[in-house]
């Protein structure tokens, strides 16, 4: 077989199928997933403004140093990571990453991390007047106000947090859900009823690896988050279940997406848009490739493309 003609992803491109996500127009339905995108790194590989949106690394009130190394282990068709949300803090973000991204013309989803409710509130306050297009609240961080469990596992704690954040900002607020819960639809409902404009899912699954040469866990934090193709069917089921429970809430589908076909499955499950995470770690241009592949698939599905452009979803 001959190799296929390689299309030029660097050429200026007029995207044919945009999507509306909680009132924000994305050029196309493909963004990057938080924690797998930093402009200083990805910007070397392609024009990041070509993406539907970029979700940036979780920012906290002050710089966080995260977990000690090693932070990563390979797992079948995926990886287990425990970065511990290392980031330079929201103040640096506001003068560095965010203005640069906006100057390039990117649609920016700013991911917010916190170890207690006050943390989240302080970060959101600082972001309220920023040029960020959307805020994405990562409620999977271990939370001290909540006994070390993440707020994203408890509908009551989550409502409390989201209500508080809702009062601080009018920006479209995405709540990013963890799949490590008994009833994701119940958590989703709590988020929406307390003011979320949009939901994104899934964050990583809890997992680990052991080095059989030593008998000890590979990553310093022992457990970490599983991402990559392995989690794809789990993310898809989460989106499906939440879409069934909440027909109207905008949803960003995440988890294991590495092709236009997989992105399309999320759209058919009821997502308005998707984000590519782990795939970009091993193939820097993966998100842009996925966006182009999806565009061809949407060309052949005008009904779906129309719905997305209007802010509607397949289900």
């Amino acid at each position: 077989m001959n190799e296929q003609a390689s299309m030029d992803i660097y050429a200026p491109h007029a995207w044919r199928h945009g999507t509306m996500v909680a009132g924000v127009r994305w050029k196309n339905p493909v963004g990057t997933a938080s924690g797998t995108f930093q402009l200083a790194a990805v910007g070397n590989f392609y024009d990041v403004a070509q993406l539907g949106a970029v979700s940036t690394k979780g920012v906290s009130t002050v710089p966080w140093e995260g977990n000690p190394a090693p932070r990563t282990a390979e797992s079948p068709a995926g990886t287990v990571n425990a970065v511990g949300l290392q980031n330079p803090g929201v103040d640096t973000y506001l003068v560095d990453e965010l203005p640069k991204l906006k100057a390039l013309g990117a649609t920016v989803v700013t991911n917010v991390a916190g170890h207690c409710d006050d943390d989240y509130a302080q970060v959101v306050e600082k972001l309220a007047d920023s040029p960020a297009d959307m805020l994405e609240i990562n409620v999977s961080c271990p939370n001290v106000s909540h006994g070390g469990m993440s707020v994203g596992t408890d509908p009551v704690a989550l409502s409390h947090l989201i209500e508080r954040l809702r009062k601080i900002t009018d920006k479209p607020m995405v709540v990013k859900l963890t799949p490590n819960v008994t009833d994701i639809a119940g958590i989703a409902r709590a988020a929406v009823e307390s003011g979320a404009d949009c939901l994104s899912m899934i964050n990583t699954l809890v997992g680990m690896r052991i080095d059989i040469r030593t008998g000890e866990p590979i990553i310093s934090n022992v457990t970490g988050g599983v991402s990559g193709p392995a989690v794809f069917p789990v993310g898809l089921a989460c989106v499906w279940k939440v879409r069934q429970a909440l027909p109207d809430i905008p949803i960003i589908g995440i988890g294991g997406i590495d092709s236009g076909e997989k992105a399309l499955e999320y759209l058919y499950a009821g997502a308005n848009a998707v984000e590519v995470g782990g795939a970009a770690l091993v193939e820097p241009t993966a998100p842009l490739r996925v966006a182009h592949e999806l565009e061809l698939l949407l060309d052949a599905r005008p009904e779906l493309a129309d719905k997305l452009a209007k802010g509607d979803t397949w289900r």
Partner: protein
Amino acid sequence: MTTASFIPTTAQATAAGYYPPRRTVEVTGVRQLAQGVFRLTFRDAFIAEHAKPAQFVNLYSHNPLHMSPRPFGVADVHGDEVAVIFAVVGYGTDEFSRMQAGDRIDVLGPLGKSYDVGADAHYVLVGGGLGIPPLLRAAQVLSAREDATVTTVFGYRNEHFADEFVAPFADRALAIDESEGNVITLLERIEHELRTGQRPVTILSCGPLQMLKAVSSWAANRDIACQFSLEERMGCGYGTCVVCVVDTVDGRQKVCVDGPVFTPEQLGWTE
């Protein structure tokens, strides 16, 4: 099924002013150098042209169950061929060791920061085990310079798998294996010449952490400047995932883009 490929080429990327993407290149040969140690060469003009000492490349397994990057220091370059030298320690290195000329392999790079070899100096390249390969590239680059002297100080467990490669590039090549001692043994032997030589001495080093710390302390006691190339498990290798950190006096930094080269001062290894 998708009918067009949106996997870009190096030519497209560089024409547009971007860094080359992950790409599939041709393996030009794999040779066993010692028990469990192999030298793999592949053809990639971009890496061949740009790889500086201590820069590395990510190689990727063909098996999609094993997605993570496998980083290897560029060992040497001939024309558009690039060599890496590696030990078989796990899935990926086992797979690479079984490859043959004509096979294809996915690569990304060159990645990371180089040793700083800007100065007119006597460079002492201190390598241990599979820390030696990046120093071969350092010797290769420095050998082309009039203003640099190169002494290599290599410590092996047993088989001297890299001596043949460094011979053409070093003014003086020393090597030792565990039956006789370690790199400190060799450094002690040449200490007098280092002190009395005309050029200022800079140690470039790569190897097991324990060895690097020993070299650091040996050099600190003698006021010799050092640069260390470190290793850490990587998620991306190009700076986007913050997985590959090392503790520095300025906080946790990324080995892949802030390093892999760090000074003892950065690492707080100064006694």
